[in-house]
């Protein structure tokens, strides 16, 4: 198995799907000759031609809308947002057009909107956002956030094969930092299934995306102190794996909900509601949130570091909770 970056895994997943299925095509800004701002589509224009790797004007509504139309007509478009921050410019197309079509009048809308998201690279307020929650709160979409290279490839392939609009968040911090053995052959990771990233017994840390690595780092540190964290990587946020969450909580009886996204209205709230209603009796301590505070993502490194959750903050919360 070759060692591959997170980015290369996504690229390979898309590549394979394009080889496998002629109805898969790409559209987005600067994805052709340039290969995309992060080079996720590098080489694809040369390989698949201008019809299947379409450079668009700076028109996110058109990108998403054209993807919807093409999907209705039987294609499987994969639309790139140059940064997931810009998804707000095609927001209405996603939440009101794409998401509601199947429920309203029946057809499948097999499409993917994907792109780089997340902070930690000093991108400032407009190149660092974690915008997944707006879409988790939109019935009809699926929302996927891989944490590992293996999952990234398997999940992008599942997303492309899925018959629904999938919003696929790729944490840009992981693009080149994560390197793993990734099978070169075809495999998929199913949507809607979480993964136990680390088994543990004392506190369940439910998280996703880049924060999975943060949780693992914290777990490693705390293991030395005799506190055992279980790390649950949700992988898909909509629909999310309620069973996996509840099982982990029932096992550990304490839970930390961790995300990079800002706090109020974030995924941790949703998980807290699930847990506090379905696993209330299993809880031996308060549900703890570790998240970014409610501000835009600041630019300067010390500010951004202050803003972002990290292993220390998780460990601190875990120590307190363990002592509860």
């Amino acid at each position, binding site marked *: 198995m070759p060692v591959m970056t997170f980015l290369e895994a996504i690229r390979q997943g898309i590549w394979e799907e394009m080889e496998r299925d002629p109805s898969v*095509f790409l559209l987005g800004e600067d994805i052709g000759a340039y290969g995309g701002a992060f080079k996720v589509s590098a080489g694809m224009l040369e390989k698949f031609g201008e*019809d*299947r790797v*379409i450079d*668009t*004007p700076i*028109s*996110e*509504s*058109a990108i*998403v*809308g*054209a*993807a*919807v*139309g*093409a*999907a*209705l*007509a*039987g*294609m499987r*478009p994969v639309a790139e947002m140059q940064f997931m921050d810009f998804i707000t410019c095609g927001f*209405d*197309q996603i939440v*009101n*057009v794409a*998401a*509601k*079509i*199947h*429920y*309203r*009048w*029946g*057809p*499948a*809308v*097999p499409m993917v909107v994907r792109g780089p998201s997340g902070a930690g690279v000093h991108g400032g307020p407009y190149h660092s956002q974690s915008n997944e929650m707006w879409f988790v709160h939109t*019935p*009809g979409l*699926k929302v996927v956030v891989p944490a590992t290279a293996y999952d990234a490839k398997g999940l992008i392939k599942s997303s492309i094969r899925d*018959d*629904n609009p999938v919003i696929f968040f790729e944490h840009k911090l992981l693009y080149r930092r994560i390197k793993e053995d990734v099978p070169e052959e075809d495999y998929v990771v199913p949507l809607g299934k979480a993964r136990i990233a680390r088994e543990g017994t004392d506190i369940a840390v439910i998280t996703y995306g880049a924060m999975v690595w943060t949780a693992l780092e914290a777990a490693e540190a705390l293991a030395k102190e005799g506190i055992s964290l279980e790390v649950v990587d949700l992988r898909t946020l909509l629909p999310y794996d309620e069973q996996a969450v509840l099982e982990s909580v029932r096992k550990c009886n304490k839970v930390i909900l961790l995300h990079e996204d800002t706090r109020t209205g974030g995924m941790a709230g949703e998980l807290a509601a699930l847990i506090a209603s379905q696993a209330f009796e299993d809880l031996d301590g308060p549900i703890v949130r570790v998240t970014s505070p409610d501000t835009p993502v600041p630019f300067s490194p010390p500010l951004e570091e202050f803003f972002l959750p990290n292993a220390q903050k998780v460990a601190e919360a875990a120590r307190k909770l363990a002592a509860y």
Partner: protein
Amino acid sequence: MATTLTRRQLHDLYYFLRLNRRVDEQLTNFYRQGKVVGGVYSGTGQEAISVGTAYALEPEDFVGPMIRNVGTLLVRGYKPRDLFLQYMARKDGPTGGRDANTHFGDVGRGVIAPISMLGEGVNVMAGIALAARLRKEKRVAVTYVGDGAMSTGPCHEGMNFAAVQKLPLLIIAENNGWAYSTPTEKQMAVRDLAVRGKAYGIPAVIVDGNDILKVYQATRAAAARARQGRGPQMIECKTMRMKGHAEHDAANYVPKKTLEEWKKKDPILRFEKYLTSKRLMTAKEKAQIEARLDEEIRADAEFAEASPFPPPEGAARSVWA
């Protein structure tokens, strides 16, 4: 007016014009009887555009009608009952009561359902056209845009995208003078929507939207150009919204005189006059068509009224395919 349409085709056009009008009238009746759920948005006075454009297409083409394009739906094979059922929110309607009015479609028939948010449909139809190009299928996609909808950002993005990609997209701009209570002077500082097309590099013509043969011919010609790979085409149809925005709206903001003038240009009466004066339709033929319409409307109205409301659990349909 001059045409190469056969006598049967001309009668077809007349039939659909009248059918469109009759469906709108029946919906208004239902509305007044309190049987409609929500509002009724009529295409009265604009039937020549819906019918003329749709009739000019090939079966494999796609249309993306808006709320007033009942005529488009009828030409594509939907029946009056589909509209009645949908407007009355009944179980047997095309969406089983999940959505309202013309918000239905069927990919198999090449009909894409609109959404309320104006302008978005241009992009969706551009995507349909893009798929056609990618698959080397010679189909065109038709999008309808009002003078109001033309102000939306998505409309701009879709038209520009289609122009750059040279997509077989037909943009039917229905300039009916009003967007709800807003006259076109408050919507835009130019007279013609057609100049917008040109600003994207999209050939644009202006036609009298109340002249069905002109609309038909312009659409045939534009669709042919699009099919030949000459990119998107725009047709601005000048017309007038003859009722309020919806039945609840008395449209007191519309000058009475304007309405009176436009009444004389009624697209159906005009076409009828043309057909009879050119002896293309006899009084008997006309009566036969009307009788057929009477029967269709009656039967479908009855059918729709008899249709039950959907069972509550119908709401629990999955949001995912």
